[in-house]
């Protein structure tokens, strides 16, 4: 995910990079080579051969003399980013190391360390404030008395507000802002297991509380999928009410584990009045899992969540109904940190009128993309497909608008409430 987020920021954060010294002739040549690699990749691999209507050759001819003359990395990156911005599409960008570090506290490779841990806190940005939304039972944070709704002011002495303001200024009102800012704070909290992190909170009485919290293993089991960095996966399924089933998992991986959890709660919940799928904070993962998950909730064959368009073909996200699907009311919970496959599932089920969506607007980050290393050492992110939900709208840059918007508030969190879940439960009981 860090890699993903860093890539999203791409050229947007170029301005955060410190000034660079004048480049050597060899370094300038590497930038020229990078320019050509980017231009050729887009020409040959963009899902739309017409490149969104832009005259790509003309852009090359206009910008190539400029990259030839670029004498600093800032200048070079501005030109590379300018070229990609002409496409007017997300998921195309440059990942300068300096900007990447503004939001990523990890190593330069973007790879997680299996030894990483956290104090047992999850959080969300609410109106620009980082609020605790989950404290793992038995975790160091729980032992030190951290409560829901506490605001995180500083991590290891570094005030959060200026950094978040900087990122927000760079991103403006982009849907992705919440996802990126949240991840940035979460990653500041993470680090080597058994090492401590100093966190300054604002408690429920608006008093500052300074705690030294030990990091323990991240929640879930390690999973490795292809070339992705090692990830931590968890899934939970239970009843939130005697007659309402509930499933939550932190990302769309480990399909067998998700299936087992869904199957188990389904078997215990045959007579349940409703079901809730909680995708808040879920950044996506394996796209095909959206189809498999949908199949648990419909008996209608031939349904499609949406269509992914690649350069040479298109792929329908078809739904295969399970033998005994749940057909009662289905609520899906989302927020600004729900992205990619989570949006494909939520958006598709909404379009099919099979689910009611609760929470806040999703991240609008549905495109599959790749990141390659450029000759100059920067990363280059490019999308390889477009995705249109079954209702006919792209999710990219637009996201899923909940049927019922429910925002978190510090007051409700301090009261131990989950207003989004409460709204879904209330709706199900009203059906």
């Amino acid at each position, binding site marked *: 995910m860090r890699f993903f987020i860093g890539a999203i920021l791409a050229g947007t954060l170029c301005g955060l990079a410190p000034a660079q010294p004048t480049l050597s002739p060899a370094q300038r040549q590497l930038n020229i080579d990078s320019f050509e690699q980017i231009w050729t990749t887009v020409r040959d691999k963009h899902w739309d051969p017409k490149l969104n209507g832009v005259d790509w050759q003309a852009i090359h001819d206009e910008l190539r003399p400029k990259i030839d003359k670029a004498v600093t990395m800032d200048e070079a990156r501005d030109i590379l980013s300018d070229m990609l911005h002409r496409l007017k599409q997300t998921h195309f960008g440059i990942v300068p190391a300096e900007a990447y570090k503004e939001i990523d506290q990890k190593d330069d490779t973007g790879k997680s360390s299996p030894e990483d841990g956290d104090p047992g806190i999850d959080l969300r940005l609410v109106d620009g404030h980082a609020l605790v939304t989950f404290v793992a039972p038995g975790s160091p944070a729980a032992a030190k008395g951290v409560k829901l709704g506490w605001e995180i002011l500083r991590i290891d002495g570094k005030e959060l507000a200026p950094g978040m303001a900087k990122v927000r200024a760079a991103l403006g009102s982009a849907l992705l802002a919440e996802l990126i800012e949240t991840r940035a704070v979460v990653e500041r909290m993470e680090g080597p297991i058994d090492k401590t992190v100093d966190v300054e909170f604002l408690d429920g009485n608006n008093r500052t509380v300074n705690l030294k919290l030990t990091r323990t293993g991240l929640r879930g089991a390690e999973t490795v999928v*292809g070339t992705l960095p090692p990830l931590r996966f968890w899934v939970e399924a239970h009843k939130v009410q005697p007659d309402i089933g509930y499933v939550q998992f932190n990302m769309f991986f480990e399909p067998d584990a998700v299936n087992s959890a869904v199957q188990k709660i389904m078997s215990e919940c045959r007579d349940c009045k409703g079901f809730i799928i909680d995708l808040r904070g879920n950044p996506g993962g394996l796209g095909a899992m959206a189809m498999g998950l949908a199949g648990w909730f419909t008996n209608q064959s031939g349904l499609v969540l949406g269509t992914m368009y690649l350069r*040479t073909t298109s792929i329908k996200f*078809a739904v295969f109904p399970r033998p005994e699907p749940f057909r009662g009311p289905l609520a899906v919970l989302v927020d600004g940190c729900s992205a990619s496959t989570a949006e494909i599932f939520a958006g598709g089920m909404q379009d099919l009128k099979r689910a009611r969506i609760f929470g806040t607007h999703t991240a609008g980050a549905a495109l599959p993309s790749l990141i390659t290393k450029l000759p100059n050492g920067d990363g280059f992110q490019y999308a*390889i497909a477009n995705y249109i939900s079954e209702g006919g709208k792209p999710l990219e840059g637009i996201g899923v608008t909940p049927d019922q918007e429910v925002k978190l508030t510090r007051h409700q969190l301090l009261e131990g409430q989950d207003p989004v879940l409460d709204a879904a439960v209330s709706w199900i009981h009203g059906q």
Partner: protein
Amino acid sequence: MSRFYIGRNIAIGAAVVLSFSLARAADDLPKADNILDKYVEATGGKAAYQKHHNEVSKGSLSIASVGLKGDLTSYRAEPDKSLTEIDLGGMGKSTEGSDGKIFWSKSSMMGPHVKEGAEKTQAELSSKFNAELNWRDLFKDVKTVGTDTVEGKDCYKVQLTPADGGPITQCYDKESGLMVKMTMTAQTPMGEQTVDSFATDYRKEGEILMPHKIKQVLAGQEILITIDSVTFNADIPADKFAVPDDIKALVDKK
């Protein structure tokens, strides 16, 4: 999709050919019938094929662009029973099979699925055992449509049209007679997908010469299938091709 991973060769259903067509090939091209018959001879001959009543192939499947690799096992038996199992690490398992009547697939990611319509027709074709020998029964028309060069080998392009469904194009090495490429349009619930398959590393398994590396290009991704071992006339359990319970439940609901 996994149907295209199978194989004695590229995809058994299409690796074969046939036609009662009397259509003549262009004057400067050999007749498709001869090319297809030559393939059988080049890979071991009719008698060698007829000795086999089932086969078990084991190997691996990898998608290098995303760093995925997993195990593949394929069971096939006369006349049209098949089962292919793929375990792709963090992506879970996918299985595809046929008992000769019901053609199905299931995967950890997508769930169980019973094939119908054009998808079923294509699955029926690819499940035929020893299809190489019976191409005349499987295709209503075969014709040589040109030549091509595939990975440095000059080959004859043969178009095979089944009784039902779209044509398959195969390219046979002019010199060795071995099939080096196959192109077909796969019928899937996710839509039609063009699949190019490239067969290399032909080696003998018993008396049959067969490719041990098959590169498939599908939706811009390269999938490499490597066959490590093939056992003919294996002791396959009687229930190996039985339809799974969840597939039966879906069939019963229809």
